């Protein structure tokens, strides 16, 4: 320790202090401040850029999610529409079928009725014709029969015979 104190050089201490403080002040002004500022600027620039990129990414994700959601919604809507359309179609077809059936039934009935009345008329016609025809035949026959006396007598006899039988 004593040796250390003896060795201590005040001149060296003085110069070291002076030169060190001088270089410290010079470097602070001309080196450390500009260097640290530049580095800090760069770092904050990088940080900002990274944050911006992160934001953009998030936004992108949001957009993607949105579009995905929209797509999903559209899909659901489309399916619903298709389903509705199908149902409507089926209903329309069924309705039409029912209507057609009813119409057809109605027409058939009408036709049957018409046929029935036509038939009746025809039968009545035929009956009348037959009656007229048979009357004419009977007139002719009777006329023919009554033209001959013998024949007339014979007929009467036959009829009386028939009556007897009864």
């Amino acid at each position, binding site marked *: 320790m004593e040796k*250390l104190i*003896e*060795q*201590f*050089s*005040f*001149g*060296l*201490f*003085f*110069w*070291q*202090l002076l*030169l*060190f*403080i*001088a*270089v*410290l002040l*010079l*470097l*602070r002004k*001309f*080196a*450390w*401040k*500009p*260097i*640290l500022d*530049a*580095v800090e*600027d*760069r770092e904050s*620039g990088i940080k900002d850029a990274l944050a911006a990129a992160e934001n953009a990414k998030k936004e992108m994700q949001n957009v993607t999610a949105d579009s995905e959601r929209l797509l999903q919604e559209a899909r659901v809507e489309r399916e619903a529409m298709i389903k509705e359309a199908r149902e409507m179609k089926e209903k329309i077809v069924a309705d039409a079928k029912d209507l057609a059936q009813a119409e057809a039934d109605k027409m058939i009935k009408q036709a049957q009725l018409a046929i029935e009345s036509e038939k009746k008329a025809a039968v009545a016609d035929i009956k009348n014709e037959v009656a007229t025809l048979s009357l004419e035949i009977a007139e002719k026959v009777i006329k023919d029969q009554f033209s001959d006396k013998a024949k007339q007598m014979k007929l009467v006899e036959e009829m009386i015979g028939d009556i007897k039988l009864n």
Partner: protein
Amino acid sequence: MHGFFETDILSDMQKPFYVKVLLVVTLLLGINAFAQEKDHSSSEEKGSLKNEIKEFIGHHLLDSHDFTLFTIDEEKNEHVGFPLPVILWDNGLKVFSSSKFHHGESVAEVDGNHYALYHGKIVKTDAEGTINYDEDHHATNAKPLDFSITKNVVFIFLVAALMFFLFSRMAKSYKTNALPKGIGRLLEPIILYIRDDIAIPNIGKKHYKKYMSYLLTVFFFIWIINLLGLTPLGVNVTNNIAVTFALAILTYLITTFTANKNYWKHIFWMPDVPVFMKIVLAPIELLGTFIKPFSLMIRLYANITAGHVVLMSILGMMFIFKNWIGSPLSFGLAFALSLLELLVAALQAYIFTMLSALYFGSAVEEHHDH
């Protein structure tokens, strides 16, 4: 309280290195003793060689008033190098060239006063250069205030200039380009390391900015000057207690003058302890504020000095052994130790910066409930 113990813990962290140095030194002594025992015939010659090596190491550790790269012939006083200006304050400013001392061989006469070099220090003498001693063999000659531009001052200046050149250029390169260019690519990660791993964790995001200039300057200064000490220029700045004292006192002054109320309260009136303990702790804590920078000073000084002494001792062994196994061994050891010293150069700069940041951090720590 915490601050005081942290110093202890950190000096404990240092221990492995000291242990290594001690190991190497004991190993060395053992080998030397062994060599001595074996070789009685030429022990006298070896003894003088050993003394020469010892003297050389001692000389290397000291500052000098001239810049000597190496000595050609000690007897003829032939050296390669150049003299440096000597500036003395002795009833007026005296400036003269150190060549007047002729490497300590002669007395310099300036304005009727006579000065001589005694163990690297300038003392006032008579015309013959007589050194007077007291009983403890200390020179009693008057010592004028010596502001000489010594070899170490030259290197401090060179490092300061180099740093200014490097970093101001680096700062300029940022004006045109957001990314560092050239040497800045190497320096920027170190600057960022000091900011992100030393300053911010220890001082806190709120206050670290005002300390950054000091931390960066002190780190690069110590690192570069330690590295220069490992070059063959033979310069050794941080093993001067005056240099480490100047650095430590700056840390102390900055800590003291930027400290907030909370810091002083923790020193003089420790919260959350009984009143009796408050009174006991106050002087301890106050002493702690001086011990902290003191440990900074001693740590840097001792590590660099130990490194240089051991390295040069191992190099000196080469001349003692003078055989085919000892010299390569000593060379290998010196090489390995040089690599270790490269690490130590950076490590000491790191530790000084780190601890300074820690002290600054305790000075601006905000009050929070324990």
